[in-house]
């Protein structure tokens, strides 16, 4: 039957359409199933414990207030870092997801959060680093400040009521200073 079909005028239409279709399809793509593995980094608990001990006295009040939160008892598989007393912030809301945690501070005209995680995406060859990442990054409605400590990754995020005017969002100084106050909560520097 195929041989007969090839001889018909319809066959020309079909072949023409096939050629046209492939030519005009351009870079369109079916959904790929290639993925990038995500692995959990090893945590340097000794370094975290040493850091917590070094700041324990200075941050005692903040640590005790945090540890009084019910949510602080949830197991967290990375050191919990919070803003220290020098930041002048209130005790944050906190939630743990085991291998990640989030802390949130609502302050006058700004919102601040700390997102900690021990998971890391393994980049495929198709990703290229065109420029060296910076710790501070404007994100439109605010800014991020990213750092790695003890094998974990932490992202400080700030948003402002006036994100294009408030220098706490537009300039790196404020987040950089806050990052400098980060401390490991004593009692949270060991794997539960």
């Amino acid at each position, binding site marked *: 039957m195929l041989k*007969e079909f090839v001889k018909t005028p319809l066959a020309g239409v079909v072949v023409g359409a096939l050629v046209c279709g492939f030519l005009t399809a351009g870079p369109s793509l079916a959904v790929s199933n290639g993925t990038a593995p*995500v692995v959990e980094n090893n945590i340097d608990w000794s370094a975290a414990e040493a850091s917590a001990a070094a700041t324990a006295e200075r941050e005692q009040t903040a640590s005790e207030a945090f540890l009084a939160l019910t949510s602080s008892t949830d197991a967290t598989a990375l050191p919990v870092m919070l803003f220290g007393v020098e930041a002048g912030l209130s005790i944050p809301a906190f939630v743990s997801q085991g291998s990640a945690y989030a802390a*949130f501070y609502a302050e006058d005209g700004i919102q601040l959060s700390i997102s900690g995680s021990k998971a890391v995406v393994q980049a495929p060859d*198709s990703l290229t680093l065109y420029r*060296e990442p910076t710790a501070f990054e404007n994100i439109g*409605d605010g800014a991020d400040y990213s750092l790695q400590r003890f094998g974990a*990754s932490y992202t400080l995020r700030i948003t402002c009521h006036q994100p*294009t005017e408030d220098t706490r969002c537009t300039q790196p100084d404020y987040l950089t200073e806050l990052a400098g106050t980060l401390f490991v909560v004593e009692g949270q520097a060991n794997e539960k």
Partner: protein
Amino acid sequence: MRNKVLTALAMVLVGTVTAQAEPRFEAPGYLLENSGEGVKSPVVFFPEMRFPIESGPVYANSHAFSVGGAKGPEGDSCDASNYSFPWRDNFCELRRSDQPLCGAGGHTGQDLRPATCEKSVHWAVAATDGVIAHVGRFAVTVQSSDGALHRYVHLDMDSVVVAPMDRVTKGDRIGTVSNSWLSEIPIHLHYDIKQPVQIGGQVHTLFLPPYSSLMAAYEKMN
């Protein structure tokens, strides 16, 4: 009878070709001409994610370089061309120039227009199980259990039904898609995802290309 069979066969083939000629998705990294240099990676970084808008159709394209956009042809941002397939990647689009993964440009995510050009109607939903890590004036961030930060920008914040530290599961409503910003912009959801990534032995926390993951999630939703 034989002619009818041959005609039917021809119709099926032509239909297939027509469908190929009108794809729903342009390939990852193929940005609009002169709008930047995209990341031509088909890798689905977030294979488990749910599509971040509750229901379709949804149109992925640039709100800035399309009709009615700040850098696009003059016209109404509700123009039918903005609400049509195929999708178009706009990660790395020329809004800024400091994104480490962008050869040129630096848009941190993907613009998504909901089914109709109406604000405060279409729901943005959790793309992942996780917690609400941040709520600002214009945006909500969901942290997944592996630390990825999924950000939803330009929501109608009066519609937001979540609060910081709430736990969410995939598909939970977050807020409606709008155009909240300091100035008038087209109705769309800016969606981006940031996560630590190891490149060349170093770990950096970066905005990752979301387009392929969004394509896969959209295919699953439909």
